[in-house]
């Protein structure tokens, strides 16, 4: 393995791992927010609900 290949591989693996995880958390966040809004009181935002 040349240095360039090894470095690219290492940075890609670590970067992709973090990004994919973040993406997953983001998607679930959006879904949870939408769910809360759908079932929440007319005026209640997601933030107001979580304070409870």
């Amino acid at each position, binding site marked *: 393995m040349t*240095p360039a290949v090894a*470095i690219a591989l*290492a940075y890609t693996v670590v970067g992709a791992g973090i990004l994919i995880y973040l993406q997953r958390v983001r998607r679930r966040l959006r879904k949870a927010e939408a769910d809360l809004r759908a079932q929440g009181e007319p005026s209640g935002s997601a933030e107001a609900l979580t304070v409870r």
Partner: protein
Amino acid sequence: MRSLSSLVGGAAVILLAAGLYVGLVASPPDAFQGDYVRIMYVHVPSAFVAYLAVGTVFVASILYLWRGREVYDHVAHSAGELAALFTALALAGGMIWGKPVWGTWWTWDARLVTTAILFLIFAGYLLVRELAEDRRRGARLAAVIGIIGALDVPIIHYSVVWFRTLHQPASIVRGDIKMAPPMVTALMINLLAFALLYLYLLLQRVRLERLEAAGAAAGAES
């Protein structure tokens, strides 16, 4: 809460970009490892964050069992997930570094073995949460495993170190790498960047946990 998280996220992105530049471009190659040393700038911070996450699980689990407040459990669960993620990333980075430098993907290096065992412990930690009878029970059981696992880390580490070194000389010795100042700087920037990234991920994940818990509670009511 959200502005804090954006602030941390922004700072993390800036520092990560700086770390990337310093690590890949500005810093010199190492005298022995050559350019492979650049892998260290993501590998070491990953391992550092993994241990940071294990520490967070430990403290948050104790606080949760002691005080019983939901927040602590949210933090523990989030940090547990990050511990599993970053041990895996640290392992991957270490193996990619080891292949060209040591000539093998895997050696029975104490740090690699300890990290692998840590990954398995936290895989079990997440599995117990997943398979528990209900959310609250899962939180309490996971806290128990988090505490036991974290307490075990130093014992595992030293037992693995002594097992290899005292009996037979290790076939491959990671020599004491004297790091030149520019390399230390590169490593420091990346460590800080990863620490901020960890904080950002933790904040996001805790928020998700809170929203999902609120959603479950609201769903149960209606």
